[in-house]
C-alpha cells in the first residue's frame, strides 16, 4: 500500500517536473549533474525542495539508450570490470540505461550499411569518417533518418568546449547549417618520426631530440642507418626508414616534409593541394627524393608488400625511423630487453623554397575520428547529448585521461599523481581467471576531448617522462598547419572515370618511385587526371573552402 502511494506521488511529481522541463529547456544540467550517486525513492522525497529541473533528473525512470559503438569490444557490464564500473557511473549520473549493440569488428562497415536498412535502429550509431561523404548516409540524413542536432548542442557546454570548430563545420554534411553528429574528437597535429636512439649513437650522429633537419642531413642519416650496420651484427640487414603500403600508396611520412596531404593556404596566399598541383612541382620533388631513397636501398624492398602491421613488426629490429605521433614512444628500457631500444623524436625536416615556409603538416584537421549520429527513432536525443556531455566533463576527464576508473583502476593523491596498482591487481586476476576486468577499451574509445594531448600519454610514466612527451606533443601542435578541406569530398569524386583514374595514378606512381618510369611521367599522369575530372574536383573544392571565408 505504502509503496503505491509513493509511486503515485512520484508520478505526480514526474508529470509536473516534465512540464516544467519543457518550459525551461532540458539538458542544461550536464555540468552540475546531481551529486547524489543513486536515485532511490527516499532521496527523491528528500530533494523536493530543489528545483524542478533537478527533480526530473533524479525521479524519472532511467531512459534506455542503445549504442552501436566502434572499436569497443569489451562492453562487459560485469560489476567487477573497469568498463562496467564506468558504465554504471554514467548511467547513474545521467539516469540512463545503456545497452551496447556490438557487431563483429571485421564486419563493422557492413553492419553500418545493414543498420541503415533496419526500421529499429540503435539510438546512437558511431560512423567512421568515410561515411561523411557516403551517399547512403547523406541520403539517410536528407530523408530524416537521423536527428539534426544543430539546435541542441549549444546547451551542452562540455561538448561545445571540447569540440573543435572545424569538426562542426565538417559535420554540416549537406552544407545547409544542419549538423548530423557529434564527433569523437582526436588531436589535429603534425607528426614526425620516432628515431632509434642506439642506432643514432652507433652511426655517430649528434641529432638532438626536437631538432629539425635539412633534407640532405635527413637522407644522410637514412643512408647510414642502412649501410653503417647500426645494430652491429655484421650483416647488412637494416633500413633507414619504415615504409608500407597504405591505401595503394607507399607511406613513410616523408610526404609530410613536402606538405602532401591536403589543401593548404601557401605562403603566397594560394590555396592548393600540392599532390595534384600543376603550378607547384613539389610533388615531383617528393617523388624524386623517394626514388633516390628507393634506389639507394634505404627503404625495405618489401615495403610495397607490407601493410602497416607487417611493417610495424619489423620496425624495432630493421628500421631506423618510424613515422608516428610521439606520445607512444619507447622512452624507457623495458626489463630484460635485448637489444636495448629507446627512441628520440625528430619533429620535422625543412626544405629550401618551401611554399609554406617551414615544416608544417596537418591531415586530421577536422579533428574527427569517427562521429556519432542519433537515429530519428530515438525519443530522447537530449539524453544522449547529456550523456556525451557528462562523459566530457571535468569530473569524468580524470577517468578518461587516466583511461581507467578512479577508485577501481587507480587512485590519485592531492598532487595529481596516479597510482595504478589497482589495475595491476585486476590484470593479475585476469591472467589467473581468464577474465577481462582490466580492459579499459570502453573509456578510450567512447568520446574524448579535442586538443587534449595528455590523454595519449601513459600516466604510469614518471612526471619527468610525461613532461618530455608532452613537450614533444606540443611540438606536433605547433607544427600543425591546418588543411582547409575539412575532409570534404566533392561530388565528382564519386564519378566512375574519376575514381578509376585516381586508382590508376596511384598505381603508376609506384613505377616512378621504383625507377621504372622517369619523374617527368608524373606530368603526363597529371594531364590525364585533370581531364578525368580533377579540374572540376579542384573547382568544387575551392568553392567549398571559399564558403568559409
Amino acid at each position: 500500500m505504502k509503496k503505491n502511494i509513493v509511486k503515485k506521488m512520484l508520478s505526480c511529481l514526474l508529470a509536473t517536473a516534465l512540464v516544467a522541463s519543457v518550459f525551461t529547456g532540458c539538458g542544461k544540467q550536464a555540468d552540475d549533474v546531481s551529486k547524489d550517486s543513486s536515485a532511490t525513492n527516499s532521496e527523491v522525497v528528500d530533494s523536493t525542495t530543489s528545483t524542478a529541473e533537478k527533480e526530473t533528473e533524479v525521479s524519472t525512470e532511467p531512459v534506455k539508450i542503445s549504442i552501436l559503438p566502434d572499436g569497443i569490444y569489451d562492453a562487459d557490464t560485469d560489476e567487477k570490470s573497469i568498463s562496467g564500473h564506468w558504465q554504471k557511473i554514467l548511467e547513474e549520473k545521467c539516469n540512463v540505461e545503456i545497452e551496447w549493440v556490438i557487431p563483429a569488428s571485421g564486419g563493422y562497415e557492413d553492419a553500418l550499411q545493414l543498420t541503415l536498412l533496419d526500421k529499429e535502429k540503435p539510438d546512437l550509431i558511431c560512423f567512421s569518417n568515410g561515411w561523411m561523404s557516403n551517399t547512403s548516409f547523406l541520403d539517410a540524413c536528407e530523408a530524416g533518418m537521423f536527428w539534426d542536432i544543430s539546435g541542441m548542442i549549444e546547451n551542452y557546454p562540455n561538448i561545445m568546449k571540447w569540440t573543435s570548430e572545424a569538426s562542426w563545420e565538417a559535420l554540416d554534411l549537406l552544407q545547409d547549417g544542419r549538423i548530423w553528429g557529434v564527433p569523437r574528437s582526436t588531436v589535429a597535429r603534425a607528426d614526425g618520426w620516432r628515431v632509434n636512439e642506439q642506432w643514432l649513437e652507433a652511426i655517430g650522429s649528434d641529432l638532438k631530440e626536437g631538432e629539425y633537419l635539412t633534407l640532405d642531413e635527413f637522407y644522410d642519416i637514412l643512408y647510414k642507418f642502412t649501410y653503417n650496420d647500426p645494430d652491429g651484427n655484421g650483416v647488412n640487414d637494416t633500413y633507414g626508414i619504415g615504409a608500407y603500403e597504405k591505401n595503394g600508396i607507399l607511406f613513410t611520412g616523408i610526404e609530410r616534409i613536402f606538405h602532401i596531404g591536403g589543401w593548404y593556404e601557401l605562403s603566397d596566399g594560394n590555396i592548393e593541394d600540392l599532390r595534384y598541383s600543376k603550378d607547384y612541382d613539389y610533388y615531383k620533388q617528393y617523388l624524386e627524393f623517394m626514388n633516390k631513397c628507393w634506389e639507394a636501398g634505404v627503404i625495405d624492398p618489401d615495403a610495397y608488400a607490407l601493410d602497416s602491421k607487417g611493417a610495424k613488426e619489423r620496425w624495432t629490429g630493421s628500421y631506423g625511423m618510424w613515422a608516428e605521433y610521439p606520445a607512444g614512444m619507447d622512452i624507457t628500457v623495458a626489463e630484460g630487453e635485448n637489444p636495448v631500444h629507446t627512441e628520440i623524436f625528430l619533429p620535422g625536416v625543412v626544405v629550401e623554397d618551401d611554399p609554406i615556409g617551414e615544416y608544417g603538416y596537418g591531415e586530421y584537421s577536422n579533428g574527427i575520428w569517427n562521429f556519432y549520429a542519433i537515429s530519428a527513432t530515438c525519443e530522447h536525443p537530449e539524453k544522449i547529448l547529456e550523456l556525451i556531455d557528462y562523459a566530457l566533463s571535468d569530473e569524468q576527464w580524470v577517468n578518461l585521461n587516466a583511461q581507467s576508473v578512479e577508485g577501481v583502476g587507480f587512485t590519485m593523491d592531492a598532487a595529481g599523481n596516479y597510482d595504478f596498482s589497482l589495475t595491476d591487481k585486476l590484470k593479475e586476476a585476469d591472467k589467473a581467471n581468464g577474465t577481462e576486468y582490466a580492459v579499459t577499451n570502453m573509456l578510450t574509445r567512447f568520446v574524448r576531448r579535442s586538443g587534449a594531448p595528455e590523454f595519449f600519454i601513459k600516466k604510469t610514466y614518471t612526471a619527468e617522462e610525461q613532461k618530455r612527451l608532452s613537450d614533444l606533443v606540443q611540438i606536433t601542435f605547433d607544427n600543425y598547419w591546418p588543411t582547409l578541406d575539412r575532409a570534404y569530398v566533392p561530388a565528382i569524386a564519386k564519378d566512375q572515370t574519376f575514381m578509376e583514374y585516381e586508382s590508376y595514378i596511384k598505381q603508376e606512381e609506384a613505377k616512378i618511385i621504383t625507377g621504372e618510369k622517369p619523374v617527368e611521367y608524373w606530368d603526363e599522369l597529371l594531364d590525364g587526371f585533370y581531364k578525368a575530372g580533377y579540374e572540376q574536383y579542384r573547382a568544387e573544392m575551392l568553392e567549398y573552402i571559399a564558403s568559409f571565408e
Partner: protein
Amino acid sequence: MVKEKTKNTRYKTSIWDKMFVVLNYVFLTIVAFIMIYPVINVIAVSLSNYQEYLKSPAMMWPKKFTVSAYELIIKNDKFWRSYINTIFVTVVHTLLGLATNFLFAWPMARKETKGKGFFMALIIFNMVFNAGMIPNYLNIQMLGLLDTLWVLILPGCFTAFNCVVMMSFLRELPYELIEAAMVDGGSEPYILSKVVLPLSKPVLASVALFLAVGSWNSYFSAQIYIRDSDLWPIALVLKEILASATTDILEGGMDPMALMEAEQQIQEKTIQYATVVVSTLPIMCVYPFLQKHFAKGVMVGSVKG
C-alpha cells in the same frame, strides 16, 4: 591359383615400374613436407616467445617454449561458449545438409526422373548467381532468423557443389541392384535406405566432411546476421582476433590511442596463432575418422559398365 598368378605378374614388373614406386613415395613425401610446413610454423609460433617470433618468423620449432598463450585462451569463457555454438551448428548443419543433398541427388541420378535438366538448371543458377548482401539480409530478416543459430545452419544446407558430387557418385552405382530391388517390389524409400545408402558411404563421408569443415570455418554469415556475441561461432571469434589488430592499425593514423592499443594487440601474435590451433584442432581430427570410408572399395563384386 589366382594369387600365384598375381604374384607372377608382380614379379614381371619392369624396372620402370619399380622406379615409379620409389619416385612416387619420394615425391609424395616431399609434397607432404612442404604442405605441413605452414601448420608446423603456426604451432611453433604459438608455443614461442613473441620476441623470438620477430627474430625468426619462419621457425619450425618453438623458441623459448611457453604455453602462456594457450593458458590465456583456455581460461577465456567467451571462447568456450563459441566452441559450444560451433559444435551445435556443425553437427546439425552436417546432418541436415547430408539429408537434403542426398535426398535431392538420388532422384537426379535416376534415369526415371523427369525434368532433370530443369532441376539442374535451377541448381546451377543458384550456384552461379548471388543476390548480394543486402537482399539476403532483408530475406533473413523477413524469415525471422536474425540473431539465431539457425541462420548458420539452414541457408547453407543445400549447395550445388555437394549435391553434384553426390549425384555423380550415385550415377555410377550399378543399376542392376536397384532394378533387382524394384522387381522384388521394394518401395522407393526402401531402395534408398536399404540398397543405396549402404553403398554410398564414401560419398557421404566426403560430403559430410565438406559440410562439417565448411560450417566449422565459416564466419561470414555470423558476421552479418548475428549481433549477439553469445551466439558467435568459433570461426568469428578467431576472425576477430586475427583482424582486430589490422583494422585498428589502419585507423591508427587517425588516432594515436588506437595505434597504441593496436600495438598491444600485435604483441599477441603468438595468441593469434594459438587461437588458430585451438579452434581448428577438433575439426582436423574429424578427417582420420572418416578416412577409412574412402579407402574401402565398396563396390566389390558388382559388375561395372
